[in-house]
């Protein structure tokens, strides 16, 4: 009895600490492979073992281990790296509340419901890695979380970690209209920048004092200042929500002034300042939606931002902003970039390696490269065709979505009780905030 208990605990510990206990060796052969780090391969082979990629190449050039389970695919099918979503709100994530426009101490990590339908929808869309962010109704709404869509029982089993063991993630910032509200929120764009600037100066001073050799000089621990300190030191990436051309340049100005690392997000009017963005070497994560408008700063949204940024030499990725667009058809967004004139290669990169790099996880995912995590997707056809379906999604060597599985298919196609909750609720509130603001502005006029 007691022995069994110990064994159980031992097995449980193993299960928690590593997925390798379940891992097996697989060889996927016969499909077209889009490795991202090299040219597309017809009749390819992908070998994975212990959750890692062991070999990628033409079928006759890759050594397939004797114990590997061979999975025969057709020449029409495509294997590509697991998709990386640089900006999503799945899992009912929250950040700061309405008490203050600047709340860097609020952690998305403490709010995410990993059993929400959003996680299943993301897997159905071929997504394997996600940056889950709090909303944009604040100048600084909180800390974001980078995670893999692994099979886990709690958020800790899904998050990615930095070398020091801390949870990997960035800081969500925003400018433009979303954070313009009644006090203590700012009422104008200039005030927005002034509030952020003042807070970053405070963080600089805090960091200086914390570095003091004299222990008495060091201030009491301040969680907000700590998070901003990580931003100032470059450890924590800023994910900056911004739409209008002038707001994009304001974000770049703040970055230059304080020296943080930054990805610009959404960027409706990036096509107007693409050269400036490229010259500043700021990576951009785009959302392409089916029409302009819905709010003033998205009035001039154009899908041509994708090709124009690409041609200017900027690094471009995409994001779902789920539930603004549904994770289940994220591939479509990159295809719409191609429709607007982006290269196929650039659009594929924007779903994979470029996106992974923006989350500082490009060393372990984003391409089908030997030694990287076995994160990949099997498609029924070309990634950018409307006729194509996501058939399987694998995360670190585990099959996490299978269109042949009735439950998974229900999530992929929708139907009665397919989505057991209304994930994306965060955005409902987000919109209600706007509606309220519009009403107030209307009344004021």
């Amino acid at each position, binding site marked *: 009895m007691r022995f069994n208990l110990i064994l159980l605990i031992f097995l449980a510990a193993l299960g928690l600490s590593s997925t390798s206990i379940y891992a097996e060796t697989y060889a996927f052969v016969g499909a077209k492979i889009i490795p991202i780090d090299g040219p597309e391969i017809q009749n390819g082979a992908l070998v994975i073992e212990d959750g890692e990629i062991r070999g990628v190449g033409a079928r006759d050039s890759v050594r397939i281990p004797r114990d590997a389970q061979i999975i025969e695919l057709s020449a029409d099918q495509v294997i590509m790296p697991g998709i990386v979503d640089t900006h999503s709100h799945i899992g009912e994530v929250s950040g700061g509340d309405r008490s203050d426009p600047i709340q860097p101490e609020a952690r998305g990590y403490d709010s995410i419901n990993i059993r929400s339908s959003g996680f299943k929808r993301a897997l159905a869309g071929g997504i394997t890695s996600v940056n889950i962010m709090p909303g944009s109704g604040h100048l600084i709404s909180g800390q974001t979380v980078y995670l893999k869509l692994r099979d886990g029982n709690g958020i800790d089993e899904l998050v990615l970690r930095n070398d020091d063991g801390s949870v990997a993630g960035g800081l969500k910032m925003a400018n433009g209209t979303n954070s313009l509200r009644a006090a203590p929120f700012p009422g104008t764009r200039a005030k927005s920048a002034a509030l952020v600037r003042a807070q970053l100066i405070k963080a600089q001073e805090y960091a200086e004092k914390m570095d003091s050799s004299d222990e008495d000089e060091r201030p009491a621990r301040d969680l907000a200042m700590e998070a901003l300190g990580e931003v100032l030191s470059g450890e924590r990436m800023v994910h900056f929500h911004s739409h209008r051309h002038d707001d994009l340049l304001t974000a770049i100005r703040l970055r230059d002034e304080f020296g943080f690392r930054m990805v610009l997000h959404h960027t409706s009017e990036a096509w107007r300042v693409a050269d400036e963005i490229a010259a500043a070497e700021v990576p951009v994560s785009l959302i392409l*939606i*089916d*029409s*302009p*408008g*819905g*709010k*003033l700063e*998205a*009035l001039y*949204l154009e899908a041509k931002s994708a090709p124009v940024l690409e041609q200017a030499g900027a690094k471009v990725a995409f994001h779902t902003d789920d*539930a*603004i667009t*549904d994770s289940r*058809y994220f591939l*479509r967004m990159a*295809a*719409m970039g*191609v*429709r607007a004139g982006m290269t196929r290669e650039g659009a594929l990169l924007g779903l994979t390696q470029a996106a992974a790099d923006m989350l500082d996880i490009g060393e372990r995912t984003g391409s089908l490269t030997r030694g990287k995590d076995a994160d990949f997707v099997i498609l029924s056809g070309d990634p*950018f*065709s*409307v*006729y*194509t*379906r996501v058939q399987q999604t694998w995360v670190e060597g585990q099959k996490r979505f299978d269109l042949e599985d009735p439950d998974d298919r229900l999530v992929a*196609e*929708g*139907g*009665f*009780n*397919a*989505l057991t*909750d*209304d994930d*994306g*609720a965060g*955005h*409902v509130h987000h*919109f209600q905030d*706007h*509606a309220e603001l*519009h*009403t107030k*502005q*209307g009344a004021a*006029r």
Partner: protein
Amino acid sequence: MRLIMKTITQAAVYSLTIAFLMAFAPAHAQDLAVQAERLYTGTGEMIENGVVLIEDGKITQVGPAASIQFESGLEVIEVPVATPGLIDARSVVGFSGAMNQPHDQDQLERSAAIQPELRAIDAYNPRERLVEWLREHGVTTIHTGHGPGEIISGQTLIAKTWGNTVEQAVIDPAFGLSATLGPAATQHDRTSPGNRSKVVAMLRIQLQKAKEYKAKLDDDDEPARDLGLEALVEVLNGDMPLIVEVHRHQDIMTALRLAEEFEFNLILAGASEAYLLIDELLAAQVPVILHPTMMRTWGGGDLQHFSFTTAAKLVEAGIPVALQSGFESYVPKTRVVLFEAAMTLAYGLEFDQALNLITMAPAKMLGIDDRVGSLEVGKDADIALFNGDPFEYTTNVIGTIIDGQHVSKVKR
């Protein structure tokens, strides 16, 4: 008596509108021809290297290039693919503007739950950015107007996506009445209606009043004029359909029950759980203007059972289905039916069926199939031009022709 007077007045307005259209819109159209490597006529036929000949804004010949004679010097637009101009079966474009500010939101009046007297032509903005956006995507006809969100939110109209004034754009100034059942009709600042039953009770009471009003009119009783009841009498007379936005299965059944009780023409809109009621819908012979395939569920729990496969299931069962762009409260401010139809291809529909959802099916449902919906002789020359498979993500719309005029040349 008064009703007859009103009908005469309305008929006069209609003929004036038509006269206006004839005088100012298509008369200026140059004759031209469209030649497409693949010409989809919208009748299920695809003509390789097909030609559509256009005279005075109307289609005068359609067929393989070899079979069609036209004068030398005629402008010929050569494209890889052409289809009939697309039809958006239900939209709020022209009412719900791109800015999403109070001054450009006219799709929903929140002051009362039942306002059938609100006319769509008094609010339609034909120069709205999103009308242009749809036009640039090959959409040539829209059924638009008051949106869902109140028990009866007002009237709808049918317009071409071209024209500087309402009079130039509109082809039916008062097509139907927009109604909503279920929780979506309760989401406002008022205390009532506060739940499903109350919504239906209020609607039933109003329809009963309209019935009595109609009886008085029929008996030459000359009741005091009531514009709201007059509009409802048109519904009871079968002159206007009641377009009911409804999603949950029990609410769909309620709509069917009401239509039977008051004998009006019902069109279901949204209808995300329609796949649960195939037999009932077939028996009731009710057409469905299905929600956008990519509808978002964040309007509330009512929508969460929607499926990408519903269009295929309804089409397969033989239920008349068209697609709508619907209503969007936030970015993007409108959907585009071209994209919504495309999305059905991976979920069970064939090419011709998907095209039908945004051409002939809505034309029939809206009673305008004598003018639009297919490329056939005698119909309006409304054509969408593409540089490849119209439904592929990476294909562009490269032009739009309305009433024989090349009204959009942008690549989208």
